[in-house]
């Protein structure tokens, strides 16, 4: 996705909605949002995907995720305290409800403006849909 975004830099806004499907993912999302409190959300987000095999099978992956936080030179005590407080759960639940209201049932699901794309698609297809939407947006309204 980020490759496609780079291609349209300045013309496209990308908004991420964590759509939690299980308890491991919930902890990871909380950790990412808590990393965001330290200004490192995107770094943590990318690391979670890059190192998915290292944590996604663990029942309670918080300790492993804190190791990632150490690698990113984050304040791990603050991050752990943030995750354990569950204060990010409200945001996560709100996103789940929003996704449900849009009939999101699986991930990834993308909306390029109002165009729905279900499942992982090749970058070339995303580029095509974004280009199509940009052309539509630039067309003068009658």
């Amino acid at each position, binding site marked *: 996705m980020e490759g496609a975004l780079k291609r349209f830099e300045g013309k496209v*806004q990308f*908004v991420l909605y964590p759509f939690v499907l299980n308890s491991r993912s919930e902890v990871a999302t909380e950790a990412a949002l808590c990393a965001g409190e330290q200004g490192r959300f995107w770094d943590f987000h990318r690391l979670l995907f890059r190192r998915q095999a290292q944590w*996604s099978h663990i029942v309670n992956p918080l300790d492993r995720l804190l190791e990632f936080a150490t690698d990113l030179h984050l304040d791990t005590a603050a991050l752990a305290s943030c995750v354990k407080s569950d204060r990010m759960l409200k945001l996560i639940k709100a996103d789940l409800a929003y996704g449900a209201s849009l009939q999101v*049932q699986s*991930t*990834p699901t993308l*909306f390029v403006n109002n165009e*729905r794309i279900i499942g992982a698609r090749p970058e070339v297809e995303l580029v095509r849909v974004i280009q199509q939407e940009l052309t539509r947006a630039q067309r003068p309204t009658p």
Partner: protein
Amino acid sequence: MAKKSRSRERTPSMRQQRQEAERRRGRRRRGMLLGGLVLVLVVGIGLTVRYVQQRNLPIRLQGAVDNHYTLGPPGAAVVVKEFSDYT
């Protein structure tokens, strides 16, 4: 001593056998037709559900950008919203 029964078991005539075979064929044909109809119905429902999921939802997508991590300029002509899970 019990009397020996005189009635003999009747064997179906050729005509009856033909009729029975015809009936069996008819049943099989009806079964296949019904199976085909059920299959078409299931595929049709699946395609309809897929279409409904894919169709545009213009009004319900408004807003909901606040409090979310974003990349790119706010107010851009194209907004990509991604619902994703880390696992």
